[in-house]
């Protein structure tokens, strides 16, 4: 009995009228946890009832505490008929289980009903008393901290990075159970919400167990996803990076790096950094060596990422997991892709297509005999790293696999409904294994790709799925990289790969660009030049990555969002035929997306992509591909050349003229873009012939009509092709060996392509956009932040159904979305749209859905060009060093100290450059606003930080799943009205939960799922949304003590339930 959960229902307000006769409501509340239910008294005839109940106490297992949410149901008492439910609140009590997070949940929660939306609010107080003898506590995974943030959370330092953790659980989707035919939509939705909540809890607990096994205490970059597979079930899966985090505490004496015990660390000074800059995780070298030894880890016989064996004696009391727990914990390392393929349904069903994005072919490198531990995936979900962590970056690696979802996976059980009814838990028992095997296969592939690039690790790793009917595309991508092994747990990485480069520390501003692979034995043909920054190492001409731009990287000018969009029609088909068709299309799509990206990159005169995310969605009759990335000009890489247009029929005069016009337009665009993005690369190395295209405006004249005399500008795209893709791309490859980067106009399609290239709308002045954490080239954020979500659905008319037409529509859809953001946010100019995250889907045959979540942040225009990092600021040094502790004892090698120091300096100065403060603190909650009670302002951002503030405490992960359904679509304002209010409601519920935890912001917020279905004929619609993020308390950077500030936002003070 390790825990006592206590809940108290204080009051309600704004309840809906449930009794038409009196226009009032007789409300009471049921509080349920596990199988125990308590009720409050009925508060008769009031829309603002005061229950002020006693403390309801639940004595429960800590395992249940992790898995189950507290369920609060508000009902209207009816004497004669059944009580009507008003709505529910699910409260995830996980944050209370971690002694460093929140200590009490107290506040107003929106009462949510899946049919009516928010119906009033309820004030609830929740506490947990853990009987915490710490050892006992450690045995369950309570206390393992979870972060959505994909960098080391501020106010922590990473003592150790253990590596990849993954887990998935499968269950039957209640929506597809037979009982769904007889129960109400509300009951069905609630069953689903509850189940997913349970599964998330379970998943988190299991991952926590793995982390503990590895000796870690936290999961960073936790990414949890749902696969709604329909008939075949519901998969909840998660990946993350296990770490040992130490809380940074400054105490009162800034000069001592003492480690206060997390419990005793006062929230206000948990981190004494005067500021946190956009990207720098607190993580570094403990120069003072005063911190204790890193958390000891247990060396496991097996390695980290495949599920480590757990003690089988661990009782699995969870109702739906009795069997699957054990199964999913079985090490699946022996399962090769071939094996699982055979098991599934023949070769056609397991068509596996993979493609590496920038640069990957198995040639040469794969045979170099690097022996990575076969049972381990050296993957990291982090996208931003402490200085010195990332040594070299190879390029993007990705893998895709088309699978058929089929209930045949449970051959022993058949699929009779009645059987499922009897024991539907066991039906799903087999599935985690299948799904695990699928992912295992893909991860293996990623790993081998990375190996081929001469890299021993994959960073910025993520996984996703797209499901249509019974076909499912599993995708994984990441960036092959070489990491500094000093930060790793022993055995986590294959040290054998370490070569001479480690002894020769590269400057941090360019080191990561240097090629990790062997120059003489390149995995793919590329043009190597000496690094333009240090002149010592070779760099590729173009670099694609999925990670954020390293903060210390030297960048010329500003970055911008680059998107490649593509639609491909596909015949409607079923089953295997469909899967085959899709897998045949995939390589072509990837190729074309890649071409587009490369062209657009060149058009903007940039040479690197960060945060690359390629999404391919399947619909019944089409495939959608969307690649988003942030283009940057890396100073270390050679300048990109222009784009040259060539006609196929040189004799035709009019054609010739046409081509010249286009060529001129392209050159003009390039010149203009250089101006817009302020790309003026230094012309330092005169020996390099390519530097000619620096800033000069003569470029235009110079290039017009003449072939660009650059031998290097061959597109990387020709090199990127999957090992399993057709020879067609091989042919293209040879084509690419011509000297210039040539776009050939041989048919109307090509003309269209070029037009679409040129018609990409320019960003209005005052705006910038990127899809990474921070905008390269902007360093002086001010405090205004506006997070938003936008969803658009376009219905295709039949007339448009050609590939070209579709492409146009899709491109316009995305472009118009961006335009509309610029318009709506015009009052924030100058501002940058950061972390623009596009998600595309084909919900129905003729619908294209695009959902975007991003944040607009203002910056100070005057200083944008200057990256203050270049000048060392001594003042910041001392303080900064203490935060950047890193246990030196981990390794004796201090060769890269210089590197670290210099980057530290840059960090500190960067931090200083965002002076405008904002934010609020927990202490504000006690100050009363006017008019009695008002609402805590909760800021939300998809980034891991809020400009002008520093995070003083992480309160726990927010992971919420909501379903909303309506049978009166027209009355709610049609689909737009319906979804608008639903998204607003989701925001409201997230904010309320954060506020109840005592927080004032959500960082690393993301909307992972937004599934929208409509049936206008029946006047019905349904939508599922899954959001996640980290609840935090942040204070203004300038505030030493959290004090109330910023009158404009002093909308504070929850009415505290206790008072």
């Amino acid at each position: 009995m390790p825990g006592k959960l206590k809940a108290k229902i204080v009051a309600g307000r704004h309840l809906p009228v449930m009794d038409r006769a009196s226009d009032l409501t007789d409300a009471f509340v049921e509080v349920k946890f596990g199988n125990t239910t308590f009720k409050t008294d009925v508060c008769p005839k009031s829309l603002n009832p005061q229950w002020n109940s006693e403390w309801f106490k639940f004595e429960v297992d800590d395992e249940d505490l992790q898995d189950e949410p507290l369920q609060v149901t508000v009902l209207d008492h009816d004497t004669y008929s059944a009580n009507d439910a008003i709505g529910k609140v699910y409260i995830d009590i996980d944050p209370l289980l971690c002694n460093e997070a929140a200590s009490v949940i107290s506040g107003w929660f929106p009462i949510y009903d899946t049919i009516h939306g928010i119906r009033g609010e309820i004030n609830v107080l929740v506490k947990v008393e853990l009987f915490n003898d710490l050892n006992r506590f450690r045995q369950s995974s309570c206390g393992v901290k979870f972060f959505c943030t994909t960098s080391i959370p501020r106010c922590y330092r990473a003592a150790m990075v253990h590596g990849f953790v993954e887990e998935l659980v499968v269950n039957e989707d209640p929506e597809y159970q037979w009982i769904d035919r007889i129960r109400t939509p509300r009951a069905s939705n609630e069953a689903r919400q509850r189940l997913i909540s349970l599964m998330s809890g379970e998943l988190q607990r299991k991952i926590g167990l793995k982390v503990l096994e590895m000796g870690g205490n936290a999961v960073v970059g936790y990414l949890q996803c749902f696969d709604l597979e329909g008939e075949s079930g519901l998969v909840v899966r998660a990946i993350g990076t296990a770490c040992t985090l130490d809380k940074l505490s400054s105490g009162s004496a800034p000069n001592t790096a003492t480690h206060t015990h997390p419990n005793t660390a006062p929230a206000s000074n948990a981190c004494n950094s005067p500021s946190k800059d956009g990207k720098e995780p607190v993580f570094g070298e403990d120069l003072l060596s005063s911190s204790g030894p890193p958390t000891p880890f247990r060396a496991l016989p097996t390695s980290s990422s495949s599920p480590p064996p757990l003690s089988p004696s661990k009782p699995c009391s969870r109702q739906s997991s009795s069997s699957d727990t054990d199964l999913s914990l079985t090490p699946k390392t022996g399962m090769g892709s071939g094996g699982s393929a055979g098991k599934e349904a023949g070769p056609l069903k397991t068509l596996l297509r993979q493609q590496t994005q920038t640069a990957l072919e198995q040639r040469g490198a794969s045979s170099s005999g690097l022996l990575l531990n076969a049972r381990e995936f050296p993957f990291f979900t982090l996208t931003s790293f402490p200085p010195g962590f990332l040594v070299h970056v190879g390029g993007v690696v990705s893998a895709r696999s088309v699978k058929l979802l089929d209930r045949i996976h449970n051959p022993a059980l058949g699929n009779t409904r009645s059987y499922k009814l009897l024991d539907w838990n066991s039906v799903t028992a087999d599935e985690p294994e299948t799904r695990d095997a699928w992912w295992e296969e893909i991860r293996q592939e990623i790993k081998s790709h990375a190996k081929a690039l001469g890299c021993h690790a994959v960073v910025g790793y993520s996984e996703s799925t797209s499901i249509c009917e019974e076909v499912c595309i599993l995708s994984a991508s990441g960036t092959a990289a070489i990491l500094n092994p000093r930060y790793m747990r022993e055995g986590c990485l294959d040290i054998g790969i370490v070569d001479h480069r480690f002894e020769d520390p590269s400057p941090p501003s360019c080191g990561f660009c240097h090629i990790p692979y062997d120059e003489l034995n390149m995995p793919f043909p590329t043009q190597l030049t000496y690094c333009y920054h240090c002149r010592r190492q070779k760099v590729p001409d173009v670099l694609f990555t999925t990670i954020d731009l390293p903060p210390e990287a030297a960048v010329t000018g500003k970055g911008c969002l680059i998107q490649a969009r593509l639609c491909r029609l596909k015949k409607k088909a079923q089953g295997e035929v469909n899967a085959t068709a899709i897998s045949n299309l995939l390589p072509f799509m990837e190729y074309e997306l890649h071409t587009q990206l490369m062209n657009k990159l060149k058009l903007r005169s940039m040479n690197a992509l960060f945060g690359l995310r390629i999404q391919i969605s399947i619909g019944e009759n089409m495939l959608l591909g969307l690649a988003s990335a942030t283009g940057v000009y890396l100073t270390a890489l050679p300048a990109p050349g222009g784009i040259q247009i060539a006609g196929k029929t040189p004799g035709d005069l009019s054609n010739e003229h046409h081509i010249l016009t286009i060529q001129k337009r392209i050159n003009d665009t390039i010149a203009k873009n250089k101006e817009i993005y302020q790309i003026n690369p230094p012309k330092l190395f005169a020996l390099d012939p390519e530097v000619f295209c620096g800033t000069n405006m003569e470029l235009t004249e110079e290039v017009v009509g003449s072939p660009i005399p650059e031998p290097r500008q061959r597109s990387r795209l020709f090199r990127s092709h999957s090992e399993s893709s057709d020879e067609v791309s091989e042919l293209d490859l040879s084509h690419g060996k011509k000297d210039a980067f040539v776009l050939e106009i041989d048919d109307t399609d090509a003309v269209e392509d070029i037009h679409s290239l040129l018609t990409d709308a320019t960003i209005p002045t005052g705006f910038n956009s990127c899809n990474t954490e921070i905008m390269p080239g902007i360093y002086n954020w001010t405090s205004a932040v506006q997070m938003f979500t936008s969803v658009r659905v376009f219905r295709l008319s039949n007339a448009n159904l050609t590939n070209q037409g579709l492409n146009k529509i899709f491109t316009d859809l995305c472009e118009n979305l961006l335009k509309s953001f610029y318009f709506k946010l015009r009052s924030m100019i100058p501002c940058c749209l950061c972390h623009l995250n596009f998600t595309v889907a084909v919900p129905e045959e003729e619908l294209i859905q695009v959902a975007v979540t991003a944040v607009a942040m203002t910056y100070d225009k005057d200083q944008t060009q200057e990256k203050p990092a270049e000048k060392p600021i001594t003042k910041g040094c001392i303080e900064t060093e203490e935060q950047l502790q890193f246990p030196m004892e981990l390794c004796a090698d201090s060769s890269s100290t210089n590197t670290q120091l210099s980057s530290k300096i840059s960090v500190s100065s960067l931090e200083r450059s965002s002076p405008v403060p904002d934010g609020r603190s927990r202490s504000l909650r006690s100050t009363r606003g006017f008019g009695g009670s008002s609402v805590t302002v909760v800021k939300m951002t998809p980034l891991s930080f809020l400009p002008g503030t520093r995070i003083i405490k992480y309160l726990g992960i927010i992971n919420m799943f909501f379903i909303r359904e309506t049978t009166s679509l027209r009355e709610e304002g049609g689909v737009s009205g319906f979804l608008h209010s639903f998204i607003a409601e989701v925001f409201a519920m997230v904010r309320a939960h954060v506020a109840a935890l005592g927080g004032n912001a959500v960082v690393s917020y993301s909307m992972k799922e937004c599934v929208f279905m409509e049936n206008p004929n029946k006047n019905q619609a349904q939508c599922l949304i899954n959001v996640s993020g980290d609840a935090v308390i942040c204070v203004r950077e300038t505030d030493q003590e959290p004090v109330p500030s910023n009158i404009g936002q002093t909308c504070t003070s929850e009415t505290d339930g206790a008072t």
Partner: protein
Amino acid sequence: MAMELDVFVGNTTIMDEEVYQLWLDGYTVSDAVKVRMEGGVMEECEASADVLLSDTMDQYRTFQMCERLLYSPAKLANQLLFQIPPHRQAILIERYYAFDDAFVREVLGKKLSKGTKKDLDDISAKTNVTLKSCRRQFDNFKRVFKVVEELKGPLVENIRQHFLLSDKLARDYAAIVFFANNRFETGKRKLQYLTFQDFAFCAGQLINNWTVGAVDNMVEDMDVDLDKEFLQELKELKILITDKDLLDQHKSLVCTALRGKTKAFNEMEANFKNLSRGLVNIAAKLTNTKDVRDFFIDLVEKTPSCVGQIHGRHQKLYLQNVSRLKRISSPAYFFPCLSPPPPPADAVISAPPVRTFSVFDLSAVIISSLSASLLESSVCKSDL
């Protein structure tokens, strides 16, 4: 591009004040888009008509969702659905409860009933205010009326606290409620020249001096109903016309008070008897509900035309009177002097003058405000 679905939701609710005003004014989405295009937002931000349309629709949806909350503005501050900074909330509320003078002039003094609501389309046609906007304004009046009806305490303060309105707007609403409750007739042609603000001023005076609330501030409806007792007592003023001595005394008191303060003084002095008679007659009839309703018409119709001139008095005087009236209406002062009917002859000298002065003065004040239009015109200017 016609979207099947198109939404944009910000964590902080984005609201464009211009679009809000268009929405309040009852423009349809397409009309609003037209107005915005003419306004030139597009050039400003390189937007297209599509973008503008989508933005306008989003905003309209947001406003529609907010409208429910605006019915009881206090909710807006502690609702969780929209995160709106407090100063924005204030703007939302203030604008939502703002009304068109032209419209309010039409419904002032009318019963806020379904019947009146049915006539809104006529009013809309007459005033050039869109029907949608008329409905919103009418519903606002009705809502405020209903809420304050059941509240104790000062009317203006109740409105301000309950609807979080500015002092000015709260006073206007108090006037509307007061007029609607007493059903003062304001629609007659002869009263057409008076603006809403004229009436609002009168309402303020009446609330402060003639209602139950003027003497007791904890009664229900204290500021809404006229003090019956007081109206009853006004009958005694007839003595000012019937008794020659008192009339003279009254005249000299009033003249002393007004001498040199109004241009119309001479006329007033010359016509004092008629003037006084007219006003006292009106005052004496106020026990009758019908006559209360016709109060403003009577003031205009049944007092000698020269009253019009009196209106042109210097504003200072008018301000002085206001303060004086307040003093008089404090119960301690009021009742001892007025209550014992009929006043003994010698007492008349001390007490009634105060009172008659007050009544006359009040009328004058009312009339002066009735003719605020005059004030604004040449008479006023030359006076100053």
